[in-house]
C-alpha cells in the first residue's frame, strides 16, 4: 500500500489530467444515460403496445443486450459499426453504453408504467384524452417518479460501466489511471486515486437523483 502522503501528493499532482478524464467519463455517462432513456422509453412502449410483433422486437432487444457482456457489445459497435460508418470513438462508446443501458431502462420503465393503476388510464380516456395524451400527461409522469429509485441505481451502474470504454482507448478515468499506474510502476496509488474520483461522481449523481425524487414527491406532502 502507498503511504498516505505519497497518495495525497500524487493525487494533487495529477489532478489536471484526472479532471480532464473525469469530464470525459461524465460526458460518456450523461450521453449514454440520456440516449438510454430515449431508447429505453421506446422499447418499453413497444413492450406494452399489445402488438405482438412490436413486443417481440422489444423482447429480442432486451434479450440480446442482457444476454451478452457489455465489453462484447462495445467491441462489436466499435469494430463493427466504426468499420462501416467510421464512428468517432466517443460515439462508438456512447452508443454502445446507451444501447446497453436502454435495455435495462426499458425494463425499469415498463415495470413502472404497468404499476400505475389502470384507473388512471381510464380516467384520462373518459375525459376524452387520446391514448398518447393520457400516456404523456397522466401515466408517464407517475411512472417516471416510481422508476426513479431503480433508475438512479442504473445511472450509477452506467457511470461505472463507462470504464469499459478504456478498452477502446478512450482516455476516461480508468484508462488514465491504469496508464499512469503502469508508466510509473505505481498501479495501486493510481487505482486508489481513480476510486476517489468515481466515489465523487457517484456522490454527485446520488445527490441529483435524491433531489429529483424529493422534488417529484411534492404531491405526497
Amino acid at each position, binding site marked *: 500500500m502507498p503511504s498516505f502522503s505519497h497518495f495525497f501528493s500524487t493525487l494533487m499532482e495529477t489532478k489536471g489530467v484526472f479532471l480532464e478524464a473525469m469530464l470525459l467519463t461524465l460526458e460518456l455517462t450523461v450521453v449514454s444515460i440520456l440516449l438510454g432513456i430515449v431508447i429505453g422509453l421506446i422499447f418499453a412502449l413497444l413492450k406494452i403496445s399489445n402488438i405482438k410483433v412490436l413486443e417481440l422486437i422489444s423482447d429480442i432487444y432486451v434479450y440480446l443486450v442482457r444476454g451478452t457482456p457489455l465489453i462484447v457489445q462495445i467491441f462489436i459497435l466499435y469494430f463493427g459499426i466504426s468499420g462501416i460508418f467510421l464512428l468517432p470513438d466517443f460515439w462508438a462508446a456512447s452508443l454502445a453504453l446507451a444501447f446497453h443501458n436502454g435495455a435495462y431502462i426499458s425494463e425499469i420503465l415498463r415495470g413502472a408504467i404497468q404499476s400505475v393503476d389502470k384507473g388512471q388510464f*381510464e380516467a384520462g380516456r*373518459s*375525459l376524452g*384524452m*387520446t391514448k398518447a395524451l393520457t400516456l404523456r400527461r397522466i401515466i408517464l409522469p*407517475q411512472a417516471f417518479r416510481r422508476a426513479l429509485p431503480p433508475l438512479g441505481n442504473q445511472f450509477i451502474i452506467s457511470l461505472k460501466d463507462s470504464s469499459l470504454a478504456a478498452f477502446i482507448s478512450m482516455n476516461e478515468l480508468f484508462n488514465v489511471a491504469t496508464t499512469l499506474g503502469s508508466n510509473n510502476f505505481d498501479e495501486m496509488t493510481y487505482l486508489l486515486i481513480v476510486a476517489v474520483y468515481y466515489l465523487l461522481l457517484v456522490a454527485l449523481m446520488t445527490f441529483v437523483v435524491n433531489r429529483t425524487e424529493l422534488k417529484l414527491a411534492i*404531491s405526497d406532502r
Partner: protein
Amino acid sequence: METKEMIKINQLNKSFGDLHVLKNIDMTVYESDVVCLIGSSGSGKSTLLRCLNFLERKDNGQIIIEGKEVNPRTDDLNKIREKVGMVFQNFNLFPHKTVLENIIEAPIRVKGVEKEQAIMKAKQLLSKVGLEDKSDVYPSKLSGGQKQRVAIARALAMEPDIMLFDEPTSALDPELVGEVLTTMKALAEEGMTMVVVTHEMGFAKEVADWIVYMHDGKIIERGTPEQFFNNPKEERTREFLNATMLK
C-alpha cells in the same frame, strides 16, 4: 314537446371470455333523466355503464348516443367521451396534479380552452361542489368524499351532456357518503342526464326518475322508484329488495 333520447341501447351483448355478462340489454335514457342501475355484485351493471363510454367494447348490439349510433371501430370515441362524463368508484384523481390541475387538464388539452378561462370555470365548479378552498391542494390531502367531489367537478369541466357514475360512494367511509350524494342530487336538479350504478337505495328512491334492476346480466325490472320499491312486479326483485331490507 318530444323528449330527447340521450342514450339508446338495443340488444347489447358483452362477454368476458366464457362469461356472458350482458345479455340482450335494451335501455333508453331521456334528457334530464336520472337512471339508477341497481343489482347485486356481478349482475353486469358496472359493465353496462362502462359500455356507455366505451371503456368496455360491446360484442354486439347498438349503442346510440344523442341520436347517433356509435361504431367503436370507426368513430372518434374521444369526441363521444367529451360528451359523456364518468365518475369512478375509486375517484381516479391524478395524484401528481393539484385539484385545480386535475380539473383544467382535459379542457385545456382536449378542448383547447384558454388556460385562464379553464381556471375560472374550474373555480366555479369547485365552489359548486363546496371545495373552493382546495384548488391548490394535492389529492393525497383530501378525504374520500372530497376526492369524489373533485372527480365530479373534473368530469363537469368538460361540459358533458351525460354523466355516468360507477358506484360513486362505495369506496367511502359511511359519514362521507352524504356529501357526495348531495352534490349528485344538486346536479340532478339542474337537469343533468345521469346514469348511476349504486347500492344507495335511499338515493335511488329519492333522486332517480327510473330504477333499473339487473340480475345475472339481464334487466329484470324497470320502473319509477314508486312502482319499483312499493310494488315490484318480479319475484327476483322482491327477493333483492327483501335482502336489502327496503321493502
